[in-house]
């Protein structure tokens, strides 16, 4: 399991109902079931990963964040998780709304486009930046909606979501020390991890 998945797992109370959107090989839901007795389920767009997950006994269905969340009832889950995928969905704002409709809380991680290397590359070369995190050229990247940590805070404020917890995360997925300052986190954090709740 990746380090940032461990951070996500730490945010989830034992025995919860969890939906992991983009569950990949199912490592997180497997971990949540085995160590936290969660009713954890997955949605995954890559069919080979779905088949592999189901073949390991994990409840995963083929689908994607843009079109499948609308079919779940309100508050069906305690947590809805979206790992490193928000920047690749068609309608990120709608996906977040759906997550906080079907879940009481949402856990979202995304690569931070505000990282200093990206800023510097764009400033000095005038070309679309390429880093380890943002590793694909502009014409073939699936990441059609990049945002920065500050952008995400702004969207949460606009939508009325409560940021219950947040942290910057480095490329390896370990927690980065920029918690005190959003500006520093936005400059030095390669990724971000948010725990959101509904207002009221």
């Amino acid at each position, binding site marked *: 399991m990746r380090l940032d998945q461990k951070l996500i797992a730490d945010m989830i109370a034992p025995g919860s109902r969890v939906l992991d959107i983009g569950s990949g090989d199912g490592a997180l839901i497997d971990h949540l079931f085995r160590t936290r007795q969660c009713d954890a389920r997955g949605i995954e767009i890559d069919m080979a990963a*779905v*088949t592999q997950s*189901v*073949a*390991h*006994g994990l409840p995963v*269905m*083929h689908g994607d964040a843009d079109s499948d969340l609308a079919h*779940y*009832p309100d508050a069906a889950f305690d947590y809805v998780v979206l790992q490193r995928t928000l920047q690749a969905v068609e309608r990120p704002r709608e996906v977040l709304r759906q997550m906080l409709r079907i879940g009481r809380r949402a856990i979202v991680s995304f690569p931070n486009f505000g990282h200093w290397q990206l800023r510097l590359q764009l400033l000095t070369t005038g070309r679309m930046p390429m880093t380890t995190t943002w590793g694909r050229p502009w014409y073939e990247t699936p990441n059609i909606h990049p945002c920065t940590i500050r952008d995400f805070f702004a969207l949460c404020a606009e939508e009325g979501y409560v940021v219950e917890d947040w942290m910057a995360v480095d490329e390896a997925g370990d927690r980065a020390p920029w918690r005190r300052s959003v500006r520093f986190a936005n400059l030095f954090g390669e990724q971000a991890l948010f725990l959101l709740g509904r207002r009221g």
Partner: protein
Amino acid sequence: MNVPRPAFDPAVLPAGGAAADDSHQHVRFGDGLALECGAVLDELVVAYRTYGRLDADRANAILVCHALTGDQYVAEPHPLTGKPGWWSNLVGPGLPIDTDRFFVICANVLGGCMGSTGPRSTRPDGTIWGTDFPPVTIRDMVDAQARLIDHLGIDRLFAVIGGSMGGMQVLQWAARYPERVFAALPIATAAQHSAQNIAFNEVSRQAIAADPDFHAGHYRDRGTIPARGLGVARMMAHITYLSEEALTRKFGRRLQSAPASPAAGGGAGLFGEMFEVESYLRHQGSSFVRRFDANSYLTVTRAMDYFDLARDHDGDLASAFAGTFTRFCVVSFSSDWLFPTAQSRAIARALNRAAANVSFVEIDTDKGHDAFLLDEPDMHRTVAGFLDGAAIHAGLRPAPPGVAAPGPRGKAP
């Protein structure tokens, strides 16, 4: 229920086969069955086979539901054709539906022709039902199976599994007896028969009805069988089970010499040759009529056509599964155009709306609808893994050592 419970030790199948219905292992329910259409069968016979051993706590039973032309001989040679059981690649010791671990039950459907009550059965007045057999539904089939499960002393099935029409029964089981189904595996199926599928079935039925040997269904009285009509029905249906890619891969446009006798039907081709695909379909048709009854074909295709699970629940498929605790695994095949993935996705989404625990896999294959019967490694891994995961949640004992259980995480499948 006035049927004694304990007597379910296999009444061994006599050699020689299927002339009489009694030749199949069966249980007889003297109190009959009330059908959805309002008719009441005075007596119900359910022919069935079992494999493996029922645990002391009777928690390890899996009901396998067969498709339109299937039967209860799921994992052993067919008594008429001698061919291996129709799911012998999936059901057996060490296989995904592991008979070393699970007690597997398969019953001939109500309306079938392999020993369960159907058009070939005898009425109380001693005559054969024939076309007078009342219309049955998938729900009636499931009710008949439920009587068998009662008889076997099983309260809750660990799993109900089936493909195509078998998958319809799985969905009906989960909707009708949710507390009796821990896990449900509907494969290559739909929650309602589509207009296109009804249309195909109607062509099959018309082919049978147009055969002069059909005699309005009273062919047995006349000592005939509508072999030509039933054969054509099977040929047409068989095309719908395959895909264009699979037909091209298997036969292409290859020719072979035509049979000398024109009795095989249709004149020979231009130079005394015929396409291999023609020969294949004729063989499918002619071998089918030896094991299947035309009136059963009419009855069972009608049952499929009537199937519409949402209609029975105010038009909302999700409400058919409201509050369910059953774990579902919905499986479709990418090249299946008879029960396309969209129909399985509709089932999965309805289950989402019901907040059910559902896995949904589309297996990538070019083999069409038929894939559910074939050796599809991805399907077998899916079935094995889903059952294994469900068994953990059901608290069943783990798979016996040495059996091909899914490997630990991270291992290549």
